[in-house]
């Protein structure tokens, strides 16, 4: 079957190894090469201690590394630190950034600095939070907050029906005048099929998105009506507070439908997985960063400028899916959570 004796493997083997080695070198050189021009972009977030913005920054750096982009970064000292962001815009423009991603701390006050950068030829994309006016930037890449509210509203309604619950709703909102909070509130009402002032709404409180205020607000609403069985929370920090208040009065998880928005890791693992939060609309800060860097890099290399609004995606995460409302399992939420 195999011939023996008349071949010269001693000559053949080194040649074969040389060919294999050359092939390997060729493959490696192709893999390591990057034929895109290096461009400089900037990223300015509200503050670096917030896990949401940490995710944005980490993803932006990874994407920049893959795309031959030099990424300048800056962060404010707090969620309302506009001054640092203004200075960062000017500095990055001076350092040659062709595009800047920004999560505005103050939607109006940042506009003059953004317009100055754009006059200097810098493309600017707002992430997560819109500017006022929206046209101040090239584009907005953010979660559709109305859709987020609608999704959890639909879930709460379907779950209430499945559990044969006569709804008594508590609304834990953000604060007056903040767009994202208002959109989520309005979306929830639409998803649930009710309007402001509906008799099924026990009351609403402003939490500023904080756990302590969420707990205090929930306690106040429970004092008004101990039979509350559906709780809308504008974000998961508020939901943590609501859960604490419910636990303090001895209400079990099974008797209350608690819904929220964000999709952070603490909420998914410690609240959604054990069923304390029934469902949360998970948003993807990594998509904001990834798509933002890619779009600005493309524009900097002569491609089309980013425009309009990019919906960076939402998924409802729950361990108890309901019919008619698309959702993903907790495992999906864990794999894609942030913070």
């Amino acid at each position, binding site marked *: 079957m195999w011939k023996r004796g008349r071949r010269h493997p001693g000559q053949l*083997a080194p040649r074969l190894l040389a060919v294999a080695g050359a092939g390997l070198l060729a493959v490696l050189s192709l893999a390591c090469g990057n034929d895109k021009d290096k461009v400089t972009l900037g990223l300015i977030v509200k503050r670096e201690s917030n896990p949401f913005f940490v995710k944005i920054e980490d993803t932006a750096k990874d994407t920049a590394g893959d795309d031959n982009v030099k990424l300048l970064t800056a962060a404010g000292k707090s969620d309302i630190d506009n001054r640092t962001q203004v200075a960062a815009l000017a500095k990055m423009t001076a350092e040659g950034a062709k595009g800047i991603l920004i999560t505005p701390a103050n939607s109006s006050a940042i506009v003059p600095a953004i317009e100055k950068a754009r006059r200097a030829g810098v493309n600017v994309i707002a992430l997560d939070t819109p500017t006022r006016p929206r046209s101040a930037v090239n584009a907005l890449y953010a979660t559709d907050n109305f859709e987020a509210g609608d999704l959890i509203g639909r879930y709460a309604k379907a779950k209430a029906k499945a559990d044969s619950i006569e709804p008594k709703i508590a609304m834990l909102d953000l604060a007056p005048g903040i767009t994202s909070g208002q959109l989520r509130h309005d979306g929830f009402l639409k998803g649930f099929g009710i309007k402001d002032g509906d008799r099924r709404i026990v009351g609403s409180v402003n939490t500023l998105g904080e756990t302590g205020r969420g707990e205090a607000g929930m306690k106040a609403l429970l004092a008004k009506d101990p039979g509350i069985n559906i709780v809308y929370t504008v974000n998961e920090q508020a939901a943590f507070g609501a859960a604490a208040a419910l636990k303090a009065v001895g209400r079990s998880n099974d008797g209350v439908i608690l819904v929220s928005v964000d999709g952070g890791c603490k909420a998914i693992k410690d609240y959604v997985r054990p069923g304390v939060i029934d469902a949360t609309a998970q948003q993807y800060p990594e998509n904001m960063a990834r798509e933002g860097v890619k779009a600005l890099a493309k524009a900097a290399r002569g491609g089309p400028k980013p425009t309009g609004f990019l919906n960076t995606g939402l998924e409802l995460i729950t361990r108890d899916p309901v019919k008619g409302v698309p959702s993903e399992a907790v495992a999906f939420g864990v*794999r894609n959570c942030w913070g």
Partner: protein
Amino acid sequence: MAEGSVGQTQAQSQAQPLDERPRKKAGLVHPGLTVPFILLILCFAAWGAAANLTDVLVGVFRQIFTMSNFQSALVQFAYYGAYFSLAIPAALINRRFGYKAGVLAGLGLAAVGGLLFIPASGLLKFAPFLIALFVLAAGLSILETSANPFVIAMGPEESATQRLNLAQAFNPVGANIGVLLGAIVILPNLTPEAAKVIMSPAQLHDAQEHDLSLVLGPYLGIAAVLVLIWVLIALRKMPTPAEERQGEGEARTGALRRLWRNRHYRYGVAAQFFNVGAQVCAWSFTIQYARDVVGVPPGSAGWYLQASLLLFLVSRFVMTYLLGIFRPTKLLALMGALGVGLSLIGVFSQNKVGLLAVVGISVSLSLMFPTIYGVALRGLGEDTKFGAAGLVMAILGGALMPPIQGKVMDQSGAAFGYIIPAICLALVTCYALFDLRTHRNGGRLVAEGAH
């Protein structure tokens, strides 16, 4: 299959008794066979790489094809199912054509399997990948069955054990390379799941193509190495030892009857089935546990599987030492109980502690395969050869248990899925306790030869 594979312990059973008579120092290989020996060492590394790269593929395919854990576990069903199916044909090839032919047939078939990944990644469907894996594993099964006795035949009998141990030592090297390939080349470069949430159908199609091209790379590399080894071995003159032919027909029937009546053997085969099942399950779903339960990013999740294999390797040396001090089945019982405990921690502790426990299961697995093998075959005498074949078939556990764990994971989550290795290891512990509590007649522990 990683260290502790079927072929390794089969070959150990064919080596010389390790008695204490002084002997003349023997060369490692016959003159002129150093290069062929090195080539066979590469084979051991290659099949280790292919086997453990498959562990990574389970999670990779789940993400690429957005499928359930049960469906993705069919990867292991295809892989180990091929090993099971080709065990007997491999032996027939060796008997008819000799070990060199068996090695070449195995290398060739495995290379074809690797190359079948090319059309599979073009079709963008899961089933062609399963076919490619089946063919690859079929070739590796023939290779493993042929390579072990071939290594033994390459040199003097006195150095056979040493020669085989040296060759086998490269299997875990290959196993770690396989996982490393997955951890470096595939996992960190997969399209992020979150990115797919906002992709259009056309973009999703492109992403799938991109991700499948990542899978293609390592298997083409393995195929290339196998082809190269095939050419070098085919062109090389190698003496092939004559096959022993005994009155097999009558001996086989009698052996099967005797083996079936032997409870230590019968339960040993079952224990081996569950041990292989536990091992393949534990490693196949380590990455999923890291991602689904703890939220470890894909680029980092592969390192936990890598840690499992390294722990397995180190523990094997430690266990080898301890086996010289303690009765094997005592150690087996202890490790079985440890494995059950660690699996249950993985089930109930759904955080980094649980993940570390899942990684730690490898410590308990490290001594099981050869120990069960030796205990089950002890005292079988002339029936050892057929008994060994039965233990080879226990590899079926690696094909059947992962889909079961996948199903449990789909119903109850990745953490609860580790109840399956817990049950498997509990049954292995039961076998060890059975051996400790029952009397059996004579016979040394079979790591030495019955030939």
